[in-house]
């Protein structure tokens, strides 16, 4: 494996962690959005707030990580993506501001009206932000970003596949979030919330699965490079994802809880790596390969070393944060 390939693996690792943990935070916002009126939605919203508060900012850093690795290790791809997909990217950036601020401010105020307004800001932007991020990813996968950049600002992403991918991002975030919230409710002994989110997890799993299958049909209709590879070199990962997703469905229907989270996470991880495997060796299919856009070898080495240091320092810290949070040792008063 070349240094450039290794950096691509690092990039994909960041993307995977963001898709799972960042995605779950956005998904929780989706459930917050449709939780109903203040009274009806109070308890699910309370659980969402308790689950997200200590971890969302750390999870958000994966996005920074992705951007930084992309612009340092693959500057040409970064420039091309940014100068083509600036419309959905700008909208996603606005969404990030509104989501973070809405959520952080909501927990600090008492007035019901202000809480409602901030909550709506948080929840609505939690849906729009992953949608635009998905559109960016879909546009890349669709081969709409030219290697030199400056692709069309609108027709590059206002296409079936990018829009489907956007919807898939929202649905898969909602799915992971519901699964995580089932476990959180179970831990705090709130049986009604547990079944509340189990029902929603089931619905989200079906919707996300439907989007994924529909996406495959869109890909097939486009007769795209990605489709050929998904049914070829990436096929095992597609199968793993489908199996995991199916397993989650069966478990939810039977009321089983043990191993639900790993299985649900597995379904998302397999999709992310399936996409990567299908794109390989392209970063921007089919105009720019990983090696063509790679930075000089010394820079790639620096990125790899920094990642190794991060793996030693950051991953255990992150594990500590999750552990403390799961043990209910972190709370705001």
């Amino acid at each position, binding site marked *: 494996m070349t240094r450039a390939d290794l950096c691509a693996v690092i990039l994909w690792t960041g993307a995977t962690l963001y898709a799972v943990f960042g995605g779950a935070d956005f998904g929780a916002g989706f459930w917050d959005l449709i939780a109903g009126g203040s009274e009806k939605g109070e308890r699910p919203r309370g659980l969402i707030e308790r689950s997200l508060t200590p971890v969302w900012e750390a999870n958000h850093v994966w996005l920074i990580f992705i951007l930084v690795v992309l612009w340092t290790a693959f500057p040409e791809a970064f420039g091309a993506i940014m100068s083509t997909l600036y419309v959905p990217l*700008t909208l996603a950036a606005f969404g990030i501001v509104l989501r973070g601020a809405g959520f952080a401010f909501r927990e600090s105020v008492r007035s019901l009206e202000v809480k409602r307004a901030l909550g709506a800001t948080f929840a609505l932007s939690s849906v729009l932000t992953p949608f635009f991020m998905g559109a960016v990813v879909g546009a890349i996968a669709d081969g709409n970003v030219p290697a030199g950049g400056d692709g069309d600002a609108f027709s590059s992403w206002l296409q079936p596949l990018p829009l489907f991918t956007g919807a898939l991002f929202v649905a898969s975030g909602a799915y992971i979030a519901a699964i995580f919230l089932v476990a959180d409710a179970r831990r705090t002994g709130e049986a009604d919330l547990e079944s509340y989110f189990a029902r929603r997890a089931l619905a989200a799993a079906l919707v996300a699965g439907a989007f994924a299958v529909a996406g495959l049909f869109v890909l097939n209709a486009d007769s795209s490079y990605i489709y050929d590879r998904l049914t070829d070199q990436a096929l095992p990962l597609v199968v793993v994802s489908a199996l995991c997703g199916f397993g989650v469905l069966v478990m939810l229907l039977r009321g089983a809880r043990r191993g639900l989270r790993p299985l649900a996470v597995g379904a998302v991880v397999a999709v992310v790596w399936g996409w990567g495997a299908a794109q390989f060796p392209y970063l921007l299919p089919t105009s720019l390969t990983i090696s063509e856009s790679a930075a*000089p070898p010394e820079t790639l080495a620096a990125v790899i070393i920094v990642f190794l240091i991060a793996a030693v320092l950051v991953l255990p810290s992150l594990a500590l944060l999750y552990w403390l949070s799961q043990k209910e040792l972190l709370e705001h008063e």
Partner: protein
Amino acid sequence: MPPLDLLPLAATESNLLAARELMAFTLAFHIVLACIGVAFPALVLTANYIGLRRDDPDAMRLARRWSKAAAVTFATGAVTGTVLSFEFGLLWPNFMERFGDAFGIAFAIEGIFFFTEAIFLAIYIYGWKRLGGWAHFWSGVPMLVAGIGGAFSVVTANAWMNTPQGFTLDAAGKVVGTDPLEVLFSPAWTYEVPHMILAAYMVAGFLFASVYAVGMLRGRRDRLHRLGLLIPLTIACIATPVQIFWGDLAARGVAEHQPAKFAAFECIQETGPDQTEYLGGICTEDGVKGAIGIPGLDSWLVGFSTDTVVTGLNDIPANERPPANTLLHLSFDTMVGIGFGLLALAGWFAFVWWRRRDIPGTPWFLRAVAVSGVAAIVAVWAGWIVTEVGRQPWIVQGYMRTEEAVTEAEGIWFVFAAVLLLYAALGTAAILVLRTLSRRWRELDEDATDTPYAPREPTP
């Protein structure tokens, strides 16, 4: 001076202006929160340490409250910082495409610090209830290190833009080799990085102190307010003289590495010895008008002798001179002026404390502290105007012009307007939330003193 009317501007020129204004505005907004993020750990851990060590409930209460305020400012800083990461690519795609492989290295390291800070800040600010005493205190220490490390990474990336090195270019100008250590430690880092970290400590220290100074001016002179003033003020006042020293180093560093920037902010028209140091005034092609001039001082400050030859703008090619020299000159003077003003405040505080072990009794001292936080922020803004506008027309000094870097995307002015609105709402909401918190605490304090049978807190 750039042309004032926008209509005749070519598309790129218009985009360049819009992109620069947008970058400047979002950076100015973020830098305040970044300063708090860098220095907050030192402030809160000092209060926490005093609280634990001396069993001081007031210090503990301050630490807890600052934690809650930090939850608000850190979240705001996290999202405005993300916007800046997007802007690197969205506004300057050609810069990132050409130099991301060098410029990015420092940011890769910043990722580690940002993670560490986000993780341990969360553990610290949400761990008050369940993590006991010293374990909780130590959980905050990594964020102190991460704050300083993060500031190093980001500012050293900017230092590299001012004194780029550590890369080789092929004939087409593409980076084909890098030396990551040379990129990370370009000459300007030695003065830019400490200058900014000290600035962060001054901003956060004076800002926190100013909140309690206002409270004391309104008659709330309890121990909590005194301590809330003393801890951050002491930290800021220790940073101030060091900052003046480092600022002096920085100015000499700029004179050496970026003579065009130095000539622009000092308004030196002709190269030569015996340069006059001008305070204030308007910079014109015939020199400074309406300023106080101290003959020879500028040369002396650059080389400790009035014979020191200082480069003037006449030796800089016309198309490489920074724009808006009056803005640069006045920004520099503002920064230095505020710096000395804060030094005077620090001296006053230190003198009275040394003689009487007390805060100066006159309300004028509290008034001065009350404005010191905003003053420190203005000084930081002025300093960044000098750094960034003074580097123009370059984005990477000597290698890439800002106009080559800017995006060709349409609608930057529109995005700028939208960002202004968004950030106005964001800033207003953040301040309102902080005020709500402060009002709630005040009510708690008043309730506690009004209730005759409330359990007494042990006095130290």
